[in-house]
């Protein structure tokens, strides 16, 4: 043992700078884990690419069968035409991956702490809950960007579908989808905190329930009548409706965006409240010992 500590090594940053560095440290930790986990490539790149090939080809097949051209990019947004179906499928695929990737990135980020039994370690540092979430959220943003870039590039290269033709309206739609993904992930993290590994399957499967009800690839008017009110209550339904409206030549769908914004805000508040309750239960029941 040597004794070479310099006194300034004990010095701590101010509260704001320390918070910012904690957020960055969490994000960097998860980035390093991703880089060293080849199997995660399936979540980030392989499945999104497979989805794009699947839905893009179905759309193109439908377009060809109806004699509506060979590419998706030129289709009109009028409901019922084959090129529109191709556009709906491809825009739905790109937008779906925003919400899906955000959700699994954030949720698997937390799962990583449970798998590596790092939960007690984190709880015994000054790291606050919101700093942790912000750090994993930042990582999720980068991961989602990579995945969405892959999907959008393939859609353009293989099916001539240019996502940027959706225009500036794409920005609020994308932001709302990211927030929806966050909200679902927070609820899933809450369930994992409370119920442990039994709830892990929800990380990958939870959104599968939301997908058909949200009208990702079709208007919810095509759903069976009893399910339509449920679909209308989901903020994701209104975000995807706004996204679909952007594929046409009509005006920006402000009404859908406003409803989607309110719904997303409500969903986030509910998810945060739920997570807070689950964390309190986690502490009260001493569930941290699962990871000791």
């Amino acid at each position, binding site marked *: 043992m040597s004794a070479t500590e310099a006194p300034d090594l004990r*010095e*701590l940053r101010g509260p704001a700078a320390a918070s910012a560095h904690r957020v960055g*440290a969490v994000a960097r*930790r998860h980035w390093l884990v991703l880089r060293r986990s080849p199997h995660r490539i399936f979540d980030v790149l392989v499945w999104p690419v497979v989805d794009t090939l699947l839905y893009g080809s179905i759309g193109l097949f439908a377009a060809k069968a109806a004699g509506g051209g060979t590419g998706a990019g030129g289709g009109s947004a009028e409901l019922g035409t084959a090129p529109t179906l191709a556009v709906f499928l491809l825009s739905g695929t790109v937008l779906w991956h925003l919400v899906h990737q955000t959700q699994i990135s954030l949720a698997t980020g937390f799962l990583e702490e449970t798998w*590596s039994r790092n939960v007690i370690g984190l*709880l*015994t540092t000054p790291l606050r809950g919101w700093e942790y979430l912000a750090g994993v959220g930042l990582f999720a943003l980068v991961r989602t960007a990579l995945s969405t870039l892959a999907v959008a590039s393939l859609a353009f290269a293989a099916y001539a579908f240019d996502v940027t033709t959706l225009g500036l309206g794409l920005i609020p739609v994308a932001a709302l989808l990211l927030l929806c993904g966050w909200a679902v992930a927070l609820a899933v993290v809450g369930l994992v905190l409370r119920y442990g590994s039994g709830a892990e399957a929800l990380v990958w499967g939870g959104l599968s329930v939301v997908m058909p009800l949200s009208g990702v690839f079709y208007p919810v008017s095509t759903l069976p009548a009893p399910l339509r009110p449920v679909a209308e209550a989901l903020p994701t339904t209104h975000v995807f409706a706004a996204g679909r409206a952007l594929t046409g030549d009509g005006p920006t769908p402000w009404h859908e965006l406003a409803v989607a914004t309110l719904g997303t805000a409500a969903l986030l508040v509910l998810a945060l409240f739920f997570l807070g309750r689950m964390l309190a239960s986690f502490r009260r029941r*001493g569930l*941290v*010992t699962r990871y000791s």
Partner: protein
Amino acid sequence: MTAPPPVLEAHGLVKEYRRGRVVDGVRLVVREGERVGLLGPNGAGKTTTLLMCLGAVEPDAGSVHVLGHRVPAGRSAAMRGVGFAAGYLPLPDRLRVREYLRLYADLYGLRAPRAAVENALEHFGIGHLASAIGTELSSGQRTLVGIAKASLHTPRLLVLDEPTAALDPDIALRVRTGLLDLCARHGTALLVTSHDMVEVERLCERVVFLAAGRVTADGTPEEVARQYAQQDLEGVFLHLAEERDRERAGRDREGAGAV
């Protein structure tokens, strides 16, 4: 002479799980620079007590103050001056040792994290492990890295749960020397649980024995051994473990009789 101020004060701690009450009115005070051993047989409530003191588990009753902050409410502020390591915790398996230490240096809020990491690697003689991934380390090496992590920010209170459980005698000696040096030079208080009574006698100046969730003895190792009419702490430990087994057997007999 005035006693140094407490860095940890826990009063009337109670924790009950479905299987019963695991901590029952524990009072634990650790003062600045003090080296305290929290001892007791398996199931005595040591780890639950530690986790309540660290704000990771909420007590059903009682209060905990760490460095003047009430926990769990003030956990974040309190943990700026606390380090924790446990011999049973692995290292994250996809991080190199240097990256792992850097992560924690940032989480503690250190202004010079890189220098603190290099210092810790050198201080505990683990510089050669800096580029290793967590899964490549032996249990003893993992323990050393864990203790280096816990002391990165030169905490005012260092809490160690079974730190030397998996260590060879020579590594245990390095750990002990490093901890004593840290305490002597920076006035760091130490709260440690261990099943190695010889280790505790070498490291701690005061011991608190728990049995069935209650404090049964609190004093210097010699005082506690005298209280139980034993020669050393190992004798006290064996005595308490026998008592626990007798109580369990009695409860089992009562249960069988009731059926």
